[in-house]
């Protein structure tokens, strides 16, 4: 792994990484611990969902941009159609992104979603519909971010291909032109 071979490559954005993980962990921890200690469902619901919403916002608006250089949003154009936009930084900046940052970003996204799925299964087994509601909301938020950023990444890969093709095409054509100009 990177950790062994690149001792100088630390997290480039420690604060952002911290916040990226903070709200996810807080939501999960609060949900799990409060089920043991707190009796009031309303407080559990509101706080857990609030933390999950904060996490969604942080990931989408802050850590997505800073850690992996991706962003996505929805627009409605003049014709009234809904367009989803998925964007990434250009290839040079993308390749300069810190590997640890992006590793952390993606893994915590996936792990959080997996944790919520696990909790959903638990509440299903116990027939607790109201807790299932909480978990459902948090899971929806996690999955929304995963889908959004995965689409950004696919778009990024498509662009690499397009860019490569264009570069090859332009090089080929300029080579042919220079060949003809010589002759």
């Amino acid at each position: 792994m990177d950790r062994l071979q690149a001792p100088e490559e630390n997290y480039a954005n420690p604060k952002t990484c911290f916040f990226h993980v903070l709200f996810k962990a807080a939501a999960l921890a609060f949900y799990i611990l409060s089920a043991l200690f707190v009796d009031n469902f309303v407080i559990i619901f509101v706080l857990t969902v609030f933390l999950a919403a904060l996490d969604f916002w942080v990931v989408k608006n802050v850590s997505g941009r800073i850690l992996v250089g991706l962003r996505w949003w929805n627009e409605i154009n003049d014709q009234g159609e809904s367009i989803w936009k998925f964007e990434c930084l250009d290839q040079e900046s993308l390749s300069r992104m810190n590997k640890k940052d992006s590793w952390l970003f993606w893994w915590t996204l996936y792990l959080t979603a997996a944790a919520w799925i696990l909790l959903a299964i638990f509440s299903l087994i116990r027939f607790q519909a109201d807790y299932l509601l909480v978990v459902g909301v948090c899971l929806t938020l996690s999955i929304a971010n995963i889908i959004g950023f995965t689409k950004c990444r696919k778009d990024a890969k498509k662009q690499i291909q397009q860019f490569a093709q264009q570069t090859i095409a332009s090089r080929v054509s300029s080579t042919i032109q220079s060949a003809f100009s010589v002759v």
Partner: protein
Amino acid sequence: MSHSDTIPLHPSSQSDIDEIENLINASVQSGPATVLPARPPSPPRASIPISSSPFIASNLPPPTYQKPPTAPGPTTPAVIPVSDSRPSPPDPLDSVWDTVKRDLSRIVSNLKLVVFPNPNREDPGKALRDWDLWGPFFFIIFLGLTLSWSASVKKSEVFAVAFAVLAAGAIILTLNVLLLGGHIIFFQSLSLLGYCLFPLDVGPLSLIVVTITLVWSSWAAYPFMSAAVGPRRKALALYPVFLMYVSVGFLIIAI
């Protein structure tokens, strides 16, 4: 997204994107000016060419974008923003605050457009162009909290029921419009129905006031919903909306 995508952006979306652009510029351009052991010194780019989108090229108003592109080459100290004097990594907190302010102002403007009388109601499609779900989220939570707090028994159940009914109700109503052959965008409609909950949130809990506020909510939702479907199906689309607000009103009164 293809390179030929040249759909002009809505002005308020453009300003959002301007802001995001500036934030990305700030976070990348401050790289070389600060001592970051982790990151290899990145040549300060004049702009972040976000390659899939056309707006860099053509659509944004020039003044905003003169700033980065006019920066000549690798060393552009004139263009590097605030954080050049700081020895630490660029502080994202400033930009975070900007983003928060932007989102909050969007909530307020959406609320004003939807709930209060204003000239834009004739063109409903334009009004909720910048839909967001934060407003509805807060309103639903607030309504659930109010109901739960004032309920004498079964507080948790009341909250869960209120939340589930409102959330599921909004989704089902939207599906109803879509299935009636209407032209409405899913999230826009969810956003609309959530914002129309606002009157019910703020009205104090007496019968008359609740009646007034639910009529206000329905009236607020009416132009958007009716514009979405054909004339013969308007009642089919609007009746469930009215029904939902009436049932929320009953929830408020009865509990």
